[in-house]
């Protein structure tokens, strides 16, 4: 089974110059935690996730504290978010995007997911145009389907 057999053919994405605020609203409406970032030719140039924004608004040492109870007050968070809400998202996105292609195997995709600790990967064509995405549960489902073709357990 190939990535193309199980991928979600949805190419929802944001452009590099869209604001942090727009990105947060889109995530809420999409029920997504991140979105691919594309240029005007639909070529993928980055990934932006809620995590990137959270990292930008809380002081970096909080990552080490492991608990939000140490945050002195939420005003700091508000102030920081107010500062960056109109900023373009390319300032916060991750430019090092790991992608797969439709003819890649599920094994290859799962290897990348595990190695980079991602939950989903973007699927692109030869010119890096966004074609869709694939996530962990789909890969598991794909593998399960393959098992089903080989044998029919009677449980």
């Amino acid at each position, binding site marked *: 089974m190939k990535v193309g057999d199980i991928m*979600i*053919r*949805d*190419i*929802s*994405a944001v*452009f590099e110059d*869209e604001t942090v605020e*727009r990105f947060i*609203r*889109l995530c809420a*409406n*999409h*029920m997504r935690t991140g979105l691919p970032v*594309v240029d*005007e*030719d*639909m070529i993928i140039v980055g990934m932006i996730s809620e995590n990137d924004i959270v990292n930008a608004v809380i002081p970096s040492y909080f990552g080490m504290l492991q608990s939000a109870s140490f945050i002195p007050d939420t005003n700091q968070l508000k102030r920081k978010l107010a500062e960056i809400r109109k900023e373009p998202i390319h300032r916060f996105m991750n430019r090092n995007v790991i992608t797969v292609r439709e003819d890649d195997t599920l094994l290859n995709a799962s290897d990348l997911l595990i190695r980079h600790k991602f939950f989903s990967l973007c699927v692109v064509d030869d010119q890096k*145009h966004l*074609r*869709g995405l694939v996530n962990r549960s789909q890969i598991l489902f794909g593998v399960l389907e393959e098992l089903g073709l080989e044998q029919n357990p009677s449980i």
Partner: protein
Amino acid sequence: MEILTVTLNPALDREVIIPNFQLNQLHRIFNRENMIMDPGGKGINVSMMLSSLGIPSLAMGFLGGYTGRVILEELRRRFKDVTTNFVRMEEESRENLAIVDEMNHSITEINAMGPTIMEEDLLHFLRLYQTAVSHTKISLISGSAPFGIPLDVYASLSKMAKEQGNWVLMEARGRLLTNAVNQACPHVVRPDLRSDNKILGQEVESFSDYLDAGREIIHKGAELVVISYQMKHDLIFTRDASWFLTIIQESVDPSHLLGTGDVYMTAMIYNALKNGKDLLATAKFGMAAALAKTHYVKKEMPKLEDIQTCMEHIKVERLD
């Protein structure tokens, strides 16, 4: 991806089949098949039908709220060849509910109001569309527009698609269509006459009204115009000639006309892809598909062999 379909106002079409439906009664449904849930809206319908013919397409437009998510999930689950790129907004997409009672031959319909589109969502959509048409070859723009969308939006979409060399097909009505025809006429125009008999703002009644309307759209720059006339006929206009097509040896069941317009557009795209751009043949194939569709109750693409059979039930007369 060669084909792009635009649905600015998608809907979730729900159909509940209840024999002997009564007000103030509890009705239980024991068969899941009696609760049908379909993604709808004219462009989406075309994408779904193309997918059932094995032709991939990109579907674009606006989806919102919980209803929007259901539309998207159903579309993804059932039609693998449809790639989606919808702008997601906060307000809910439309939902249409029909209660069908085959025992008493009644249909009770409840149609929810569509959302209002915010300016930033419209701008986002236009930008995505501009990006998309540089990769596609055929653009289908079809159906109504929700609140908040300016009445020249189809003109803008048609212009962008034409500038990128797309073959543009449009099925619409009212000012949306009139503005598009006047400002950036699509290549193929099929006025939607389901809710009124007006084309380009003019009432059409007599045969010559229809002829004038068709020729006017050709004059504005279309290469093919299709106008349905009294259910059993189609008027076909090209730059060189016009034809009068008639369904022979067939009685058409009006209750099965639902969705024939979308089948017509899908079939024209299919024929143009497979057999090139013989415009009369394209229109005739569209009409045959719409006729074949009337043999199906559900909103689905007829089989190719059924369309071929129906080709023989259409008489073609040249008008000039």
